[in-house]
Every structure is written in structure tokens, then in C-alpha cells.
């Protein structure tokens, strides 16, 4: 006997993400979900970004890891509110889900905050599947990884709105084909803005920071 169900498996997450999105909208907070494989420099990129942006735009960070508060400790030196989520307590999950963000937002005082970064768990597969209620998704890759990451993980690169290629300072020492990496990103997502930066030296950060500032400005003025 067949019983019709017809339901989205992730409908609970999607509902929760919509709730988060409404809350962020009401509070006027622009939310950027940053994803990458482990070690591509999400935390370093955020450190540099916060040092350049937090004085002008009140910013907060939620950072997800399976274990440790190492990343939060680093980011907190910037002086902005940082909340570390250890997914160990949520079943050791390899990604952040919308209900975890809802709890985190409860803990984090968002009043006066205009920009919220969510540093997702380092992983190019699972986080792509989970909407958190963010405004924009950014994928970070780095010059020490394969140029073919975008075509190996198309869902991640397809669902993101911008890509950052980090560690440009290492290009002279590597065989990394930057043009090929960009071509691969554009194969999966033809109109994706790409920012080539070095979070270490600060090279290329201006364009990335402008992109963020423009997005935040658009949201505050009601244009999305």
C-alpha cells in the first residue's frame, strides 16, 4: 500500500532559514556565509577584513568548527563580538544548519550590528546544502589547493554569490595556474565576482571590501 508524502526532506531547515532571514531583515543585519575547504584561510581573510571594516560598519562573527575555540580567539582580537559554535554538541556535524544559527543569534546581541559574518565549518560539500538565512554566500579557495576545486564541487560554487582566491602572495612559489582557476569558477558560475587576495599581505583586499560595503549599503537602503 502506497502512501503519498511529497515533502522536501530539508523543509525544516528551509523554514528555519526563512525565519532567520526575516529576523536579520528586521534587525537590518547583512549576513555573509563564508565557506571553503579546511585551511584555505577563511579565518585569516576575516581577520584582515575585520581590521579594515569593523571601524566603519558594526560587525559580528559566528564561527563554526567541530571542536576548539581557536578561530574565535583569533577573531576576537579584532574587538568585534564573536560567537564560536562547536558542532561537536550538535552531533559533530560537518556544517552549520539554520537551527544552530537561530540559537547563536539568541546568544549574540545583534542590536546595532549591521554586518554578520558566518564562518562555516571547513568543508566544500555539506555546507552548500544548508541555507542559513544569509544574504550572500562566499566561497574561499586558495592557491595551495587544486585549480579544479570549482568543477569538483559544483554545488558549492554554483550556490555562492562570490569567490575569493586567497594566498596570492604564494603565487611566485607555486605552480598554481590562476587563470585556469578563474576559468573553472566561471565554468560553474559564469557571472561570479572573483577576488584574488592575500589575507596575509593585504594585496587585493580593496575590491573585496568594496564589494562587502556596497552590499551592506544596498541592504540598508532597501535595495537587494
Amino acid at each position, binding site marked *: *500500500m502506497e502512501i*503519498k508524502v511529497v515533502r522536501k*526532506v530539508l523543509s525544516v531547515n528551509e523554514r528555519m532559514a526563512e525565519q532567520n532571514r526575516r529576523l536579520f531583515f528586521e534587525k537590518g543585519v547583512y549576513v555573509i556565509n563564508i565557506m571553503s575547504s579546511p585551511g584555505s584561510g577563511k579565518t585569516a581573510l576575516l581577520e584582515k577584513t575585520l581590521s579594515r571594516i569593523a571601524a566603519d560598519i558594526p560587525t559580528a562573527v559566528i564561527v563554526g568548527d567541530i571542536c576548539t575555540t581557536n578561530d574565535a580567539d583569533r577573531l576576537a582580537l579584532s*574587538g*568585534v563580538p564573536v560567537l564560536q559554535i562547536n558542532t561537536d554538541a550538535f552531533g559533530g556535524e560537518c556544517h552549520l544548519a539554520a537551527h544552530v544559527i537561530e540559537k547563536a543569534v539568541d546568544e549574540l546581541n545583534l542590536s546595532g550590528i549591521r554586518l554578520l559574518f558566518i564562518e562555516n565549518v571547513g568543508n566544500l560539500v*555539506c555546507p552548500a546544502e544548508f541555507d542559513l538565512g544569509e544574504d550572500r554566500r562566499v566561497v574561499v579557495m586558495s592557491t595551495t589547493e587544486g585549480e579544479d576545486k570549482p568543477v569538483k564541487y559544483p554545488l558549492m560554487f554554483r550556490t555562492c554569490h562570490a569567490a575569493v582566491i586567497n594566498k596570492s602572495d604564494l603565487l611566485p612559489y607555486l605552480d598554481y595556474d590562476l587563470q585556469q582557476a578563474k576559468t573553472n569558477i566561471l565554468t560553474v558560475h559564469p557571472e561570479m565576482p572573483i577576488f584574488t587576495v592575500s589575507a596575509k599581505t593585504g594585496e587585493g583586499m580593496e575590491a573585496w571590501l568594496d564589494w562587502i560595503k556596497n552590499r551592506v549599503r544596498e541592504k540598508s537602503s532597501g535595495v537587494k
Partner: protein
Amino acid sequence: MYVKTLGCLGSSAPRCSAMHEMGIAMEILSIASASIPETLKGAKVHSIRLKIGKLTALVPESLRFCFDIVSQDTPLAGARLLIEEIPLVMRCDQCHNEWTLEGPSFSCPACESGRLTLLSGRDLDIESIEIEEEDNCSRMEGKA
């Protein structure tokens, strides 16, 4: 310095391996369990029909493996996951061409535009559950 940690809040989720298929298997279990009509509670579920799009980060074998673990000791233990793979179909916003993607290249093969609309391929849906007939019949007879 302002660091808060979240992780000791606890959660209803049992500890499981670090793959998202486990969480998805748990969602499938909960949706399928809730779909069994009151009159058939305790009946054996033979299979669960799923639609999974090509552009999802799901490995069917991992999903089956996880589902077998989370469904243990529930009425859904032993239920098979019948997975229908949904092709990734795009439409070009420029020339309205529609085609099925086989690889990760997201440009229109006709006009090379990158402005596309996804028509299918992100699906992750439970379509139906199949409850074993024999049990139902004997149940009905027993009631009659």
C-alpha cells in the same frame, strides 16, 4: 576580548558521524514515520521513495548506510530507500534553450549565455512510503 561559545547548549540530535547524510537520514526517518496513518501504526514500511537531484551533495550509498543505522528499532527498520535520480535541467534566460547538464559547465550550449534558470536537479524530496500489504490485510481482517 569577547568570545562566547555555543556547543554546550545540547541538542536533541544524537551523536553521529560527521557527514550530513546522517542528518538527512534522520529527517527522512522523521517525515516518513509521521506519514504512517494512525490506523496503520506499527505496520512494516517496505520502502521509501525519494527524488534526489543531480545537483545535491548527497551520496546515495552513504544515505542508505546512515538510514539503516538511524532506522534501527523503529517501524522503518529494514525499509529500502528507492532513489530516483532527477537530471539537472537548465533554461537559458537569453535564448530560452532548455537542456540537461551532464557536466559542471553552466553556460548555454546554444548562445553561451551564463544567465540560466534551474528547472530541476536540486530536488531532495520524499515522494511516498510503501507499507507491506500482508500486514495490512491481516490487520484489516483482524478488525473486521
